């Protein structure tokens, strides 16, 4: 025994002696490089994240802090920011100021995306009237929506910190205007898990011809395990890209392949304990189950005609209406968070399509019809009781007409505005027929019951049964929250 140790030592000693500086530098190319690479790829994460041995059962067994009033969310994000002054915030005083120069007091110390010098005020470009039993004031641009106002809480005094689309969308959806934080849907699925083992807990549908300006980060999982990131589905072609089998490969072979990969990954996890390996395993398994579950849920051909008429859906196309119907089908199947983005609300008035008097009514029609149908359809299925529907943009629009480049434009448009914009919510335990918050005479500032973006996030988490101050995740050396370091639950809108 001892002789063998001597031999080994002898061997090592000799080898060291024969190793030269040249050997060392030669090996550096791969040796030191791979250490650096390991650091870059975040292999040291094991030190901070506690491994969750069975990620799937962990996801299913998550329980909220207190009894929730909403079990799932459909978030309808109108990317580009619709104009509150033509939809929800009626300002007769602003009509009187139409065409007059904007007073300096509204411009001093403010940053605008495009307005230069002294712009002109722009009166409301739509007619308004009180609707429903509650008398909520809504514009003629939303005739269908006017029939469901008694199920809706309208917040008129939202405000944000960011006046450009991408950062404002990130702030709204991830709690921070910069990249890298998990989105609201990721937080919610991380906290509450999924109710359907065959579908992801967080699904995303995009319409309007473009992804939101902030890109896919608005449904990213940030520092949370990537199993919580939103899965984007399409209503045209393959619902989820790269989930179906390649030609010549049948389900059995696919299953064998995935089993083999997962076997290797399990060994990998046993050796290194990196939770991202678990994520990878569960994603492979989920992807396999999604091969049947996704095409089934995404195929709207089996819906009866009157449902198609109600939403204005056309199977096989990409539209907000199709996405609304899909959202209902997904929450019916137990998906926790369905996020819709509809692009094309950025009415600056530099083209007819982007004008408030022509473009906006055209843009509104199908959206109005579909979002109203969604509320009614959820209601008749008894889903509106515990499904929260949220609608809104990332900021509002100025009471002044945009004068991009310092000149007058032939079309009526408004610039980005952070101080006041509307968000409405329906179902999931919020009040019906309730208008919250007051803006000033021209809709520039909130003057009573202001709601910051972080307050909205705190309220949404509260409705889901989560305390936004206790709901944290340890990453990069500290605990993080969706609401960063602020946010107050708006308890007055809760029924």
């Amino acid at each position, binding site marked *: 025994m001892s002789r063998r140790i001597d031999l080994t030592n002898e061997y090592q000693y000799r080898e060291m002696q024969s190793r030269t500086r040249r050997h060392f530098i030669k090996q550096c190319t791969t040796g030191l490089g791979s250490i650096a690479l390991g650091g870059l790829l975040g292999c040291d994460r094991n030190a901070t994240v506690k491994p969750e041995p069975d990620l799937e059962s962990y996801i299913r067994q998550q329980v*909220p*802090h*207190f009894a929730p009033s909403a079990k799932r969310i459909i978030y309808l994000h109108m990317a580009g920011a619709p104009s509150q002054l033509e939809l929800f915030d009626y300002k007769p005083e602003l009509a009187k100021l139409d065409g007059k120069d904007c007073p300096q007091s509204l411009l001093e110390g403010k940053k605008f995306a495009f307005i230069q010098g002294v712009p002109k005020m722009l009166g409301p470009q739509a007619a308004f009237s009180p609707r429903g039993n509650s008398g909520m004031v809504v514009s003629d641009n939303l005739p*269908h929506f006017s029939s469901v106002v008694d199920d809706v809480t309208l917040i008129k005094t939202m405000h944000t910190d960011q006046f450009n689309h991408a950062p404002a969308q990130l702030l709204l959806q991830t709690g921070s205007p910069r990249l890298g934080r998990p989105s609201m849907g990721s937080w919610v699925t991380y906290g509450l898990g999924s109710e359907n083992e065959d579908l992801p807990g967080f699904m995303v549908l995009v319409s309007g011809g473009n992804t939101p300006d902030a890109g896919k980060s608005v449904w990213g999982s940030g520092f949370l395990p990537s199993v919580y990131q939103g899965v984007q589905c399409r209503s045209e072609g393959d619902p989820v890209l790269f989930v179906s089998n390649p030609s010549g490969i049948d389900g059995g072979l696919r299953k064998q392949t995935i089993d083999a990969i997962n076997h290797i990954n399990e060994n990998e996890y046993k050796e290194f304990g990196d939770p991202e390996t678990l994520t990878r395993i569960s994603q492979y398994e989920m992807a396999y189950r999604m091969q049947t579950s996704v095409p089934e849920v995404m195929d709207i051909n089996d819906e009866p005609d009157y449902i198609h008429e109600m939403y204005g859906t056309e199977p096989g196309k990409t539209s907000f209406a199709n996405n609304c119907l899909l959202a209902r089908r997904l929450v019916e199947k137990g998906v926790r968070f369905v996020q819709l983005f509809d692009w094309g609300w950025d009415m600056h008035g530099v083209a007819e399509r982007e004008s408030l008097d022509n473009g906006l009514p055209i843009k509104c029609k199908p959206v109005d019809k579909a979002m109203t149908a969604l509320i*009614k359809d959820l209601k*008749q299925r*008894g889903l509106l*009781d515990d499904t929260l529907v949220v609608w809104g943009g990332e900021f509002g629009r100025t009471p002044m007409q945009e004068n991009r480049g310092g000149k007058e434009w032939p079309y009526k448009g408004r610039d980005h505005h952070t101080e006041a914009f509307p968000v409405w919510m329906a179902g999931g335990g919020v009040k019906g027929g309730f208008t919250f918050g007051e803006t000033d005479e021209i809709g520039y500032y909130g003057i009573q019951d202001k709601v910051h973006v972080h307050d909205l996030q705190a309220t949404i988490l509260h409705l889901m049964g989560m305390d936004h101050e206790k709901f944290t995740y340890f990453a990069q050396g500290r605990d993080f929250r969706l609401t960063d370091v602020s946010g*107050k639950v708006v308890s007055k809108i809760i029924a």
Partner: protein
Amino acid sequence: MELLSRKDQFSYLKPAVGFVLALGALSALLTAILGLMLAQAGDYGEDLLFIHKWAGILLVLFAFGTWWLHFQRERKPTLQIKRAYLGTLSLMMLFLAGAGHYGGSLTHGSTYLTQYMPDTMKKLAGIPVQAKGPKLIENLDEAVVYVDIIHPIMEQRCNSCHNSSKKKGDLQMHTQEVLMKGGENGAIFEAGSAAESEMIRRVHLEDNHDDHMPPKGKSQLTDDQVLLLEWWINEGASFDKKVAELQADDEVKTVLLTLSDPNANKTAVEILLAEGTTPFDEEKLNAYVNEGIAVKRLSNEDNWLQVTLYRKDSVDALLGRLAIDFPDQITWLDVKDTQLTDEGLVAVGKLKSLTRLRAEKTTVTDAGLTHLAGLNFLESLNLYGTKITDTGLEHLSKLPNLRRLYAWGTQVSKEGATKFMEEASLIEVNLGYEVNMIDSLTVEVKPIAVSN
């Protein structure tokens, strides 16, 4: 530390004693100077401040004395010096305790030591025990608004800084006279106008604002409390009028009701869920989870359970087992789109605390609904897409807490639903919508159900 270091096993602490004494003396001096500056502002009660001030000054003197004597003793350890050192050390400790205690009384109110003592300890110490929570008002109409409603709110949220011994901003709020007097910026309220009252203005400032009251970090007024304060001021800020003598709108009335009964505005179901239920057998729950059955806690702070069953589960048999294992805990049950039959509803009828039942798109019939007759807390019942008819509704009309019934896509007729809603006026029946295409962009979607 001095005493400890005399024992052999802690002798290694000895060299630190002098340094700690020096550090203590210097920081005491600094603290005393800062304290004297704060006292200049004159926001504090004279008596308490006098004791705290002089205890603090003496503490500083003795701290330096102790340090000096310690130094002397190290150089020339005579018996006299040793005794003097011990004497000053003990006196210094005494003043430290005194200054600390009175300082605490100044900042947190004179009852800070015993305020949060557990009741059993209070009894041992001979301090009177007060009933938990705010005192409930027995006769609301006869209650004097200021005495019974407003003063207790101020007592709870304002008076720890605005009282007889501490008057931040030169404001005291513990009696009628001083409240009227106001603070260094004058009156704090404008009788008849809450909007113009300094007190209310500050309450509504953002939490981070320097002038926000109560200050950041102190417990804040609730929305209801703010509403009551505003109401009292708007109604003239009277100190002797009774509740019945003041005008109150519906919002205020709703809040007032909670003062005599905290559950006044809650439904029977809300009260049941808030009360909670008995604990269940964790092992049994885990057994179901391991079987792949979705039995889950409703939340982390109570023992309520929610159950979701799927098409793959043998629902009727499972419900039988669940009704035996968790009869009092299951409050949400979701058996939609499963193989549930009328047989399974027998077990459902045994879940006495069931508040939400989703049984849509199953083969349930009228006969099955008879088993639900005893579900006294059932609030929401989803039966859309089942085989129920108008006859089945009769079994449901007696359910005292049923509020929402979903019967779209069933044999339940419009007439049947209308008749049912007339009998059971609190229940809203949803029969879905009639859809009428007008043109490609307009559609008329009208509810089929009648309103009550």
